[in-house]
């Protein structure tokens, strides 16, 4: 079952287009939603929860149509907003318990779950402190706790590591990683690509309200080309490869070769033999997620 299915989704705030003709299908697991500020990440999350009504488009969350069953969807989804969302005058235990009751859990079960989840996020000792006295890191943990206290199948996290110091950030990413182990799917929005690389197995890249790329993380990171460092006649090898239709970029002795018609490795082997060149190293050209984000759309590996 697809975690999310979005077809031709468009949403505008007045004259500003937040999302334009977004079509997506995302599987279960840990999914990263990456894009610059204003790319439409929060708008997409809010639409998935039914908090915003899109101008057009069809949305299915956990196999249920959002427009027809918004309450059923929300009962199975958790949400961690980006901004402030905690009442300063409640204790962590009271608030997380209340959040569980709001999701329909009976009072006793809500209290028990609140205690368990606060332990899980590392706030067991601080659970009876007032939220107004919490540090940013603790606030983010409480926000995560309220999002998972009712045992959702999917949790939507909007910039969960925002405002955290490096240690707090690592802890938060570790917790997000663990959600997958608990069987909770995660849709995790961020503008920091390395966070996605650390936690997710699928990524959706948004830019100015459009889907730039979407696919498994591994596939986005690898381009269909190889890199080799040549000993000897670089120019001759480049000419030989180019004559046979390969696309070659050279930086000193390092060549980046891609070839759509046939096996690139075979072509490079033949080229090396023909020009009597040697190699220092040879391998698949890999691209970091960050580089993939800045690739022109026509080079989209998805």
């Amino acid at each position: 079952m697809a975690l999310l299915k979005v077809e031709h989704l468009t949403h505008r705030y007045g004259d500003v287009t937040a999302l334009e003709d977004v079509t997506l299908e995302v599987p279960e697991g840990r999914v990263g939603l990456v894009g610059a500020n204003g790319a439409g990440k929060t708008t997409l999350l809010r639409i998935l929860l039914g908090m915003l009504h899109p101008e057009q488009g069809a949305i299915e969350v956990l196999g249920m149509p959002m427009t027809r069953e918004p309450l059923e969807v929300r009962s199975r989804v958790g949400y961690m907003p980006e901004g402030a969302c905690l009442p300063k005058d409640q204790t962590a235990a009271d608030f997380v318990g209340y959040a569980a009751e709001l999701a329909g859990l009976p009072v006793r079960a809500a209290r028990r779950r609140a205690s368990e989840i606060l332990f899980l996020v590392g706030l067991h000792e601080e659970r009876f402190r007032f939220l107004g006295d919490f540090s940013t890191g603790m606030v983010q943990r409480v926000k995560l706790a309220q999002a998972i206290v009712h045992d959702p199948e999917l949790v939507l996290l909007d910039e969960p590591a925002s405002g955290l110091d490096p240690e707090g950030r690592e802890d938060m990413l570790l917790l997000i990683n663990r959600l997958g182990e608990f069987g909770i799917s995660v849709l995790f929005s961020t503008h920091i690509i390395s966070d996605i690389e650390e936690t997710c197995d699928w990524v959706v890249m948004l830019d100015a309200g459009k889907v730039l790329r979407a696919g498994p993380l591994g596939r986005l990171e690898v381009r269909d080309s190889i890199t080799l460092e040549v000993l000897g006649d670089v120019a001759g090898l480049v000419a030989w490869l180019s004559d046979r239709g390969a696309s070659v970029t050279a930086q000193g002795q390092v060549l980046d070769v891609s070839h759509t018609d046939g096996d690139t490795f075979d072509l490079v082997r033949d080229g090396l033999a023909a020009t009597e060149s040697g190699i220092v190293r040879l391998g698949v050209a890999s691209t970091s997620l960050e580089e993939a984000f800045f690739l022109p759309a026509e080079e989209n590996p998805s």
Partner: protein
Amino acid sequence: MSNRAVIVDRGYRSYDEERLGRRGAMRAIVKEGFRRVLGLRRKARRKLFPWSLIGISAAIAFIFVGLHWVAGVALGPSAPDLPGYGEYFDLNSGIAILFIAFAAPALLVPDRVEGVLNIYLSRPLRMVDYLAAKIAALAILVLSFYLVPQILMHLGLSVVSTEGFLSYMGANLDILWKVPVVALAYFTAHAAVAVTAAALIPREGFAAGAFFGGIFILNGVAELLTQLDVAGAKYAAFLAIEEYPRVIRDWIFDIDTVDYLVEQSGFEQWTAVPATVAVALLATTVVWARYRRLP
């Protein structure tokens, strides 16, 4: 190495038991509303104001009972007519207005300002459920504020009555419907304005001030306008929202405390009832218009 075992990670347990849905969520909001207004499970300073008002309100009821007891014992049948249930509303409503001015913003403003609405609306709840639960919490609190002292007073007066407990109770059965109806009128008129102020103003103190000032300024404006020599000026009497419940109280209890603007302008006392309903409907429209676009 210690021999004691230490649990470092309890792991995660899924929840497969009962879920109560929307009704459970609305009950939780009502319960949390009581706690917030009364300062329960909050720091001590949050308790001070509401509980002081509750204490004063109860004290007035006990003073009424004491007066009746002293008058009954000392003067017997020749005792003068002392203020009763209807008059108690006059005293208690002054304190109740303060209570409403505090309670309505406490229920609505922090959720908006602190962003907690995002959490509510990510749960299986609609905005209308949220508002209905908040209004229900306010209604239960304010009606209790009016009714509990009246119940205490009724029991007290029955105990100290020279007619005997049961005879007094039997002779005053009409209290059982009159007091709740008048309390409802007070709640509806005052809460309509307080909730509107709380829905529009982003600071609890300012919202309370706007409500408190607003209803008394409207009284003054209504008085000024009704004195103008202009056709239809008498209808300005209906701007005095604060007076509606008192007019209804006089009508229900068949007493004549003050000649209110509505009456001075030639309207029957019962006209305060549809006027109260109209104010409540107008407030509902304004509050809904504000909240339907949130968060």
